């Protein structure tokens, strides 16, 4: 069988995820004073789920992106009737979303570097349209949610 997946790729993934875990734990500590060790365990759990998702994507024949597998695995192991839910929830709660996004955006900033010229070419017009795309998607969803929530009596 050809899995189209080499050991060196997996090692590379693990390396990046390890670096990412350590950085998140440090950022978390600086920003929120969460204990380093607990955040690190939380990050290892999150990275392990990602790694599983990435590998499953390569092994299974369907053309389904890894992000879906990752979401579904994360959802399943945190369900109340999952045997590992308590430790998973405890440790991952020590990792703040803000710390993860800050790192993501730092890499995004450097990644953007090589496209800066393209950004200038697209210019302010592209940026304005993008802002309206995001605004329209977000706000229309919020309006519908508000109506349905109050109709079903949840709020």
């Amino acid at each position: 069988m050809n899995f189209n997946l080499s050991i060196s790729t997996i090692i590379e993934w693990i390396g990046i995820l390890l670096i990412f875990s350590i950085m998140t734990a440090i950022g978390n500590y600086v920003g929120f004073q969460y204990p380093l060790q607990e955040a690190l365990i939380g990050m290892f759990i999150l990275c392990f789920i990602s790694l599983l998702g990435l590998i499953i994507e390569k092994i299974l024949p369907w053309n389904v992106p890894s992000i879906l597998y990752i979401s579904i695995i994360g959802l399943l192991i945190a369900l109340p009737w999952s045997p590992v839910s308590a430790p998973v929830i405890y440790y991952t709660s020590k990792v703040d979303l803000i710390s993860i996004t800050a790192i993501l955006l730092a890499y995004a900033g450097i990644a953007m570097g090589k496209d800066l010229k393209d950004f200038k070419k697209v210019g302010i017009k592209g940026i304005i349209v993008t802002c309206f795309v995001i605004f329209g998607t977000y706000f229309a969803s919020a309006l519908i949610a508000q109506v349905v929530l109050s109709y079903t009596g949840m709020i």
Partner: protein
Amino acid sequence: MPVKTKYNSEMDDLNGACKDYKLHLTVLLCIVIAEYIGVISLDLAGISIVLMPLLYSLVLAIAFYIAKPITWISEDQSEKSTAIMMLLIGPLLAKLAIASGQNIGIIFNAGPAILLQEVGNLGTIFAAMPIALLLGFKREAIGMTSSICREPQMAVVIDKFGFASPETKGFFTVFLIGTVLGTPFISLLTSVLAYLIPLHPFAYGMACGIGSASMNAAAVASLATIYPQYAVEMEAFSGMANLIAMVTGMYVYIFVALPLTERLYNLLEPIISKITDKKLKIEGETVNEL
């Protein structure tokens, strides 16, 4: 514009990115500074604007790239960072998914709202299409405004319109800008909207799940600063909404969003092009005079 056909091919192409310790140390410096500054709530004429560490780390990273004395951050690192970024979406999604699994009970209660608010993702067409046309975009506008322009829709656009088509070009314009600027933008947008139009935090929480992990996280984190008492529920709702948006995204896009966008385009384009043509003529004449 660099066009990525398939996301994962980039991810396999890490090129020994993990040994580039200078790159990682630079990023670490960015985030330590960013986290040290922390979340700031600015009060601008009664509207509280929440500034998040992700905003500072983005700006710092761009500054590091531009700064001439920093020779170890160049195009090569830029490419590596693109690949790394794709990999880091994983843990972020896992975190959101865990929040959903943990709160499956309240998610069931809010089920109808979560499902129906996905329809709101079509709001982009009505909000952005007129703007895109007014700014002078033509067929590009279809690719730009028919969705939030994330991975689930990418293959559809390329497949339907072809790789070199204006629709695909438009799609990648929003894709590229959304990847980098979309995240800080939505984190500001959520805090401004929460004050200007105070819908229930649950409603805003669900709306954050627009099918992009980084935007989702940024939006929820910024809402959680405003409504810390609802943080858990909002994270759970948004994680679930995001998952549904990703699963259904492609089908909704093919069968609903794209036909709707084309129809709106055919309706609006003749009207708006008359307005913009007039403007162009005036501009053209002034150019001729010069």
